[in-house]
């Protein structure tokens, strides 16, 4: 019997690494794929110079592939079609801005293309039945398989014996008896297997690398779309929005105006790259953050934005700070007292 040829979708987390290790032990020829969505927390932290504690997270998918010596390919899915799916998910959102079922379908369709291109027999993932409340229920696992066009070709090695056999199992390319029957949210069995198989280095805590599942990010995500609608614009997400949503402090000045204030030098530099189409604010004579205003602020909201920018700079204790407002060719300077009303600031924070 020839070896099964498989496409592995890996994040580098415990489950996908174990699935990879299991299929390797079953003798499959594997090509690993990692999808770039633009919403990975780890990647964003790396881009900003590391975690708040100074450590720099490693690329977990790459680490897992390296540890198991499996060829890996990165696939960019962060374009227009992915962004539109996020805004109009057919199967709705999870707890926050995470349309996990639609996202999985999107990725599995890409995986099917890769499977066909590579002449592989199947796609496999680290999904575990019942582990996630929405995307890993029995019914949604089936929806994902059907909607991606991978019927009978999508194997979940960690839960396979609890699911109908795939074509590769029926044809004897994969030994169903050696697949697993893990279900539920506990990871005790996975951790025991990792010890047994010498799988180490997986990130702690497991999972949770996607900004879309983050409550704070979710608030900003829906606020952005609501703000676009308030301005009479299309409910639509752009690639630079993805960068800005994970950068800085966000304040809703009004339905028609929003302020983003950099928190670090790296964030200030990042905001500088997205000035076009927005107003740029910064204290003129003292060090402080770079800030951007989006939308159509009133005069009062411009002054309010300047006061908030002054509050986060070195002039926060001064009676007044000169804050420069640059918008295209327009340059104005507002002499404002730093905003001292913390409750007011918090009420505007998104």
């Amino acid at each position, binding site marked *: 019997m020839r070896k099964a040829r498989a496409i592995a979708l890996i994040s580098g987390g415990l489950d996908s690494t174990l699935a990879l290790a299991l299929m390797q032990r079953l003798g499959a020829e594997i090509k690993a794929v990692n999808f770039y969505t633009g919403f990975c927390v780890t990647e964003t932290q790396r881009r900003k110079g590391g975690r708040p504690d100074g450590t720099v997270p490693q*690329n977990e998918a790459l680490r897992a592939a*390296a540890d198991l*010596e499996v060829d*890996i390919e*990165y696939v960019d899915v962060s374009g227009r079609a992915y962004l539109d799916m996020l805004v109009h998910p057919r199967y709705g959102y999870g707890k926050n801005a995470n349309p996990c079922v639609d996202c999985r379908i999107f990725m599995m369709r890409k995986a099917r293309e890769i499977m066909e291109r590579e002449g592989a027999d199947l796609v496999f993932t680290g999904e575990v039945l019942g582990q996630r409340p929405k995307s890993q229920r029995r019914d949604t696992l089936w929806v994902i398989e059907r909607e991606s066009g991978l019927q009978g070709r999508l194997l979940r090695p960690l839960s396979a014996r609890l699911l109908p056999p795939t074509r590769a199992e029926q044809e004897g390319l994969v030994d169903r008896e050696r697949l697993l029957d893990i279900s539920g949210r506990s990871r005790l069995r996975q951790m025991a297997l990792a010890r047994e198989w010498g799988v180490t280095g997986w990130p702690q805590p497991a999972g949770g690398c996607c900004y879309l599942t983050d409550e704070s990010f979710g608030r900003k995500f829906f606020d952005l779309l609501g703000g676009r609608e308030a301005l009479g614009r299309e409910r639509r997400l752009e690639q630079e929005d993805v960068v800005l949503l994970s950068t800085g402090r966000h304040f809703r000045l009004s339905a028609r105006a929003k302020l983003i204030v950099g928190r670090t030098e790296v964030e200030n530099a990042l905001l500088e790259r997205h000035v076009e189409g927005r107003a740029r604010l910064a204290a003129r004579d003292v060090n402080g953050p770079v800030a951007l205003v989006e939308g159509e602020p009133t005069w009062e909201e411009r002054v309010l934005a300047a006061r908030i920018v002054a509050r986060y700079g070195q002039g926060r204790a001064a009676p007044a700070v000169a804050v420069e407002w640059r918008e295209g060719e327009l340059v104005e300077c507002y002499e404002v007292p730093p905003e001292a009303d913390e409750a007011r600031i918090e009420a505007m924070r998104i």
Partner: protein
Amino acid sequence: MQAAPSALPAPDRVLDTSGTLCPWPIVETARAVKAMADGAVLLVVATDAGIATDMPMWCKATRHEHLATWRDGPAWKSLVRKRARRP
């Protein structure tokens, strides 16, 4: 990662990924290596410090030979030798 190497092969091709961030230096490296002949050496220039950990891992995963990665002023440089795929 190591200090600037003194006795390494001259590259057959140079790939400048400056300005791109994780995972693009590796994505571009993979594309470049794919188009090269077995045994050819690629010099990758990057400004993303992540290449110092990513390149050795990528080479281990894909079985290409990681010759060196070192810092050169504001940039990082990596030398990779293409190895034929296992049958």
